[in-house]
C-alpha cells in the first residue's frame, strides 16, 4: 500500500490545548502503548520541535507557547504513521498554528495565503476548546462594575486582576479580543466553511483538559458539555449541520493540571506516561489519542 499524505489543520484560540495534544500524540506514536492504533513508521526528518514539546510534557512542564517559538506563525509537524490494524501508512502534516493567529483572524480578518492552501488540501480541522480558558459572556443584567475596571495581564484570562479603585467614569474600550469565546468560534467556523473548498467541512472538536471537566461532572459527554457550557456554539453547530461533518471528543492529553503541585505529583506517579491519556467519544472512554485523526482520515 502506498503512503498517503494526509494533512490536518489544528485550530484553537490561545492556550486551547493544541501543543499538549501534539506532544501527547508524538509520545503515543513513538512508544509502546497497550492497544495503540497508530505508531511511527519512520522518524520525522526534523523532530526537534516535537522532541522539545514532548520532553516538557513528560516532565509535566507547561507547554511551550507556540507564539514564543521562532519563525513564522505555524510550525509544520510531520509524522509518518502506520495504522496498526489496517496497515494504512499515513504521512501526517500538522501545521501547529498559534492560537494568537486564530484570534487575529477574528480581529483583523486576515489570512496567510499559505494557510488557505494548507487548509484546502487538508482532511479537515481539529478544533480545540479548553474549558478552563473560555472567555465568558457577561449578560447585560449580570454585570458588576469591576468588569469594566479590570486590567489584563500578559498571561490571559485566568490572570485578570482588579485595578485599583478609581473615580473614573470612563469604561474600558471595546476590545475585539475580549469578545466571548463562543461567538469567536462560531465566526471562525463560519468563514472556514465559506473560504475552503469543502462541501461539508470536516471538524473534529476536542474538548481539552477533559479530566478537569470529568472531575466536576463525572457523567457528562463531550456534546453535553458543549450544550451546557457553550450554548451559543451548540445551537450554531446543530442548526448548521449542512455545513459541517462533525464529531466531538473529550481528551485529556496531560492527565491533569501541570501548574497544580498536587495534580503534577499524581501525574508523575504514572509509570507509563501513556496512562495519562483519556479520550471520550459519546459515553465510550479509551486511551486512543489518535481517535480524532483516525476519524478525519477514514470518515
Amino acid at each position, binding site marked *: 500500500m502506498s503512503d498517503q499524505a494526509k494533512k490536518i489543520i489544528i485550530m484553537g484560540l490561545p492556550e486551547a490545548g493544541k501543543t499538549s495534544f501534539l506532544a501527547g500524540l508524538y509520545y503515543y506514536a513513538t512508544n509502546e502503548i497497550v492497544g495503540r492504533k497508530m505508531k511511527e513508521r519512520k522518524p520525522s526528518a526534523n523532530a526537534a520541535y516535537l522532541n522539545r514539546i514532548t520532553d516538557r510534557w513528560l516532565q509535566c512542564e507547561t507547554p511551550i507557547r507556540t507564539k514564543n517559538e521562532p519563525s513564522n506563525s505555524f510550525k509544520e509537524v510531520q509524522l509518518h504513521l502506520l495504522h496498526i490494524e489496517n496497515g494504512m501508512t499515513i504521512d501526517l502534516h500538522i501545521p501547529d498554528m498559534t492560537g494568537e493567529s486564530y484570534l487575529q483572524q477574528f480581529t483583523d480578518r486576515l489570512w496567510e495565503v499559505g494557510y488557505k492552501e494548507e487548509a484546502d488540501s487538508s482532511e479537515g480541522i481539529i478544533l480545540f476548546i479548553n474549558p478552563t480558558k473560555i472567555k465568558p*459572556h457577561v449578560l447585560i*443584567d449580570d454585570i458588576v462594575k469591576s468588569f469594566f475596571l479590570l486590567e489584563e495581564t500578559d498571561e490571559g484570562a485566568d490572570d485578570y486582576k482588579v485595578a485599583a479603585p478609581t473615580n473614573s467614569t470612563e469604561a474600558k474600550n471595546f476590545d475585539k479580543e475580549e469578545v466571548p469565546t463562543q461567538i469567536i468560534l462560531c465566526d471562525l467556523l463560519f468563514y472556514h466553511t465559506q473560504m475552503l473548498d469543502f462541501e461539508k467541512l470536516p471538524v473534529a472538536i476536542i474538548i481539552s483538559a477533559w479530566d478537569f471537566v470529568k472531575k466536576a461532572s463525572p457523567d457528562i459527554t463531550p456534546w453535553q458539555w458543549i450544550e451546557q457550557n457553550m450554548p*451559543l456554539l451548540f445551537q450554531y453547530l446543530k442548526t448548521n449541520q449542512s455545513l459541517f461533518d462533525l464529531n466531538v471528543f473529550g481528551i485529556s492529553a496531560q492527565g491533569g493540571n501541570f501548574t497544580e503541585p498536587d495534580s503534577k505529583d499524581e501525574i508523575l506517579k504514572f509509570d507509563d506516561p501513556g496512562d495519562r491519556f483519556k479520550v471520550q467519544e459519546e459515553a465510550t472512554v479509551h486511551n486512543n489519542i489518535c481517535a480524532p485523526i483516525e476519524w478525519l482520515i477514514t470518515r
Partner: protein
Amino acid sequence: MENPTNPKEEPIGVIPDNEDVTVDKPEEEDELFQLPFEGEDISEESLKQITSRYRTSLILLVGEPESGKSTLYASILDRFYKGRLGKYIFAGTRTPIGFESRAHLARCKSLNLVSKNERTNTKTFSYLHLEMCVQDYDAAHNHILFADVNGERFRDARDTDEDMQSLTVMKRADHIIIIADGELLLDAGKRLPVKKNIIKFIERAKHNDMIDMNKGIHLVVSKWDKINQTKKETEVEGFLIEPLRTMFPQILKSVIRVASRSTNPTFPAGSGLEAFLDLCISNPKQVDFATEYELTGESREFQKFKYSQL
C-alpha cells in the same frame, strides 16, 4: 429558504457591487489577504450579499438617541448566549463584532460609564444580521437584517420632509418599529417630549407617504420592568399607548413591552424579546422584488433587495 445551487455565500464587506467575487492572492507566499467577511456592521453597499441569497426580513428600529436600540439588539444575542430564546435557536450572524460592540455599549450605559467607543454621529444606515431557526435544529433558517441608524436621524426625519423622504429604507422594511424609553415615560418631566416626538414622527411619515398602511408601524416600549415595578402600567398605557391607538388606528399595529435588562422578577430580563422576534419574522413581504424595483426604481436602497426567487 437557501439557494441550494450556491452553497457558498458571496463575501460581505470588501467586494464592490456588481463584481465577481475573487480573493486577490499576493505573490509572496507568506503574505496576508483580507478575509471577505468583516464581522462588523454590514454597509448598504454590501447588503445584497445577504438579500440576494436569502429571503430576509428587514427591520427598521427607530427612536430617540439613547432610547435603547443598542441594548435591545445586544440583549437578543445575550439570550442566545444562554440557550434558546423562547422557540428561537441561534443559527449564526455575519455581524458578531457589530453585536458585541453594542453589547459593550449597553453594559457601559447600564453602569453609567462613558465608553470611548460611542458610535460616531454618522447618519448612515448600517445593518446587523441574525440567523435563526424556529423550534427545530433542522428547520429553515430565518434571516433578519436590523437597519440601525443614529437617533439623530430619527429626529431629523421627524423635523423635515426632506429627511423623512430620505429614509427610503422605510418603504422596503418589512416592519417599522418605533422604540420608546419606558424609563422616561415614568418621569413626568420627560415623558411629554417622548410622546410628542413619536407622534410627530408618525405624522410626518404619513404625510410623506412613507408608511405602507398594510404594514403600519409597531411600538416597542423598553424598560417595561421598571414600569411594572412601579405599578404604572395603566398610567403609561393611558398616557402613551391608548392615545397613539386613537390617533393612528390604521397605522399602529401592535405594542411590545420589553425588558432587555431587569432585576424585577415579575418582568424578568429578556421579557418581550420573543414577541419582538415573532414580529420580526412575521408576514415577510411576499413580493417579486424585481417588480417592486421597476415600480420604484429611483431608490438606490431597493437595488439591494432584489431577491432571486427560487
